[in-house]
C-alpha cells in the first residue's frame, strides 16, 4: 500500500480530525511535525495555496483542508467502519453539516483570537452555531451519523472538545449543559468511542498551553 503521511502540529483540532479518521479506518501513517513559525519547504510545496496544516500525503500526493481529507479517506478506504451514510440523500445531509462545521466552526477559533467588541461578536456567532446544531443537527440520533460515529461527528467533535478548553482560556462560558442538552449527551458518547477515547488530548494540559497563547494574544492586541 502506498505510504501515508500526515503533516501537522500537536493540539490542532483540524489535525485531530484526520488522526481520528485514519485510526478508525486502521490506516497506518507517519506523523510529520510542522513548525508553523518556520514552515518547511515540503509544507509549502504540498500546500502552496493556504500553507496550512493538516496535509495528508498519500503515495506522495498531497490532500489539503481537513474535511476534504476526511472525505478522501472515506472514499479511498471505504471498508468498515463506514463514516458516511450509504445513500445519496443522507450523504447530502451529512455534507451539509460538514460544510456548516467548516463555515460556522471558525467562530470558535476567532473567539480565541479576539478581545473587546470583537470577542462579543465572535461569542455570539459561536453560540448561534451551537444553537443551530442543537436544534437541527442531531435530532434523536445518538451520533450525527446514526448509531455509529461518522465524519460529521469528527467535524463537530473537534469543534466542541476544543471549545471547552478555549472557553476556559478566554474566561467565558458558552457550552452549558442546560442550554445544550443534546450536544452534551452527544459529546459524552463521542468521547467514549474507544478510538476517540484513546486519541483525545488531555484538556488540562491543553488549557496550560492555550492560556499561555491567549495571554500572548491579549498582550499584543
Amino acid at each position, binding site marked *: 500500500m502506498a505510504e501515508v503521511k500526515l503533516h501537522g502540529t500537536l493540539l490542532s483540532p483540524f489535525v485531530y480530525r484526520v488522526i481520528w479518521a485514519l485510526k478508525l479506518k486502521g490506516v497506518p501513517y507517519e506523523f510529520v511535525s510542522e513548525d508553523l513559525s518556520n514552515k518547511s519547504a515540503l509544507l509549502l510545496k504540498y500546500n502552496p495555496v493556504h500553507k496550512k496544516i493538516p496535509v495528508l500525503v498519500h503515495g506522495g500526493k498531497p*490532500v489539503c483542508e481537513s474535511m*476534504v481529507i476526511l472525505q*478522501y479517506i472515506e*472514499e*479511498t478506504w471505504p471498508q468498515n467502519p463506514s463514516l458516511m451514510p450509504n445513500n445519496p*440523500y443522507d450523504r447530502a445531509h451529512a*455534507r*451539509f453539516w460538514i460544510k*456548516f462545521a467548516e463555515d460556522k466552526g471558525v467562530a470558535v477559533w476567532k473567539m480565541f483570537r479576539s478581545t473587546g467588541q470583537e470577542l462579543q461578536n465572535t461569542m455570539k456567532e459561536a453560540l448561534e452555531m451551537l444553537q*443551530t446544531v442543537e436544534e437541527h443537527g442531531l435530532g434523536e440520533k445518538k451520533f450525527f451519523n446514526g448509531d455509529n460515529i461518522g465524519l460529521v461527528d469528527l467535524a463537530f467533535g473537534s469543534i466542541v472538545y476544543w471549545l471547552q478548553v478555549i472557553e476556559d482560556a478566554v474566561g467565558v462560558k458558552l457550552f452549558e449543559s442546560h442550554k445544550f442538552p443534546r450536544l452534551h449527551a452527544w459529546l459524552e458518547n463521542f468521547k467514549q468511542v474507544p478510538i476517540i477515547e484513546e486519541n483525545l488530548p488531555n484538556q488540562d494540559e491543553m488549557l496550560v498551553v492555550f492560556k499561555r497563547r491567549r495571554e500572548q494574544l491579549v498582550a499584543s492586541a
Partner: protein
Amino acid sequence: EMEGENEVKLHGMWASTYSKRVELALRVKGIPYEYIEEDLRNKSPLLLQYNSVYKKVPVLVHNGKPITESYIILEYIDETWQNGPRLLPQDPYQRAQIRFWASFIQQQLFGSFYKLISSNGEEQEKAVEEVFEKMNVLEKGMKELLPEGVPEVDGNNFGVLDILVTATFGPYKAHEEVFGLKVLDPEKYPLLFSWVQKLNEIPLVKGVLPPHDKLVALLQFIKQNDLKPSS
C-alpha cells in the same frame, strides 16, 4: 439509479450563480424538473421550510425531500442519476482536488469579490489587489489540474469544474460593464479566459445564463442602492 416516479423541483433565482450551477447540472444530465422562481425579498414559506438553517436558494426538492447548498446538490445529482455524463470523476484523489478548488472559489474568490463590490476608496483598491491575487492562484491551480489545457466541452462532456467556471465567470461581460473592472483578463488569466469563451459557446450554457441586459440592470440596482448581493 431509481427511475420510479422522479419528481424534481428547483427553487432558484434567475441571477444567482449558485442557482445556475444546479440548472446546468440538471440539464447536462437531462433531468426534467419544475423551476420555481423565488423572490428573495419575499421568500416562499416552502423555501423557508426546506432550508430552515440558511433560508437560501437554491434548494433541490427530489420526491419531496430537500437538498441544499449548491455544490452538495451537484454531488447529489451525480450520485442519484448515474446514467448520462458523470459530473465528478470516480477517483478519490481527483474528487479531493475538485472539492478543494470548489471550496477555494466559494470561500476565497467569492469572499474577495464581495469585498470588492461592497467597499470604497482605499479599501476597494486593496480589494481589487486581492481579487487579482486569488484569480492568479485559481489560474495556476487550474493549469496544474489540467496540464493538457482545457478539455473539449459540450453538452455531453460537462463536469463540475465546467459548471463552477460557467456559473462564476459566464456573465463576465455584465460584471465588467457594471463594475468597470476587467477581472477575467485574457492576458493575466489565459486559461480561465479561453475556458469561459468555449463554455459560453455551448447551447446548453446559452440557455441557462441570465440575459445580459437584465443582469446588468439588476447589478446596477444593487450597486446604486448599496445593497448586498445574497442568495
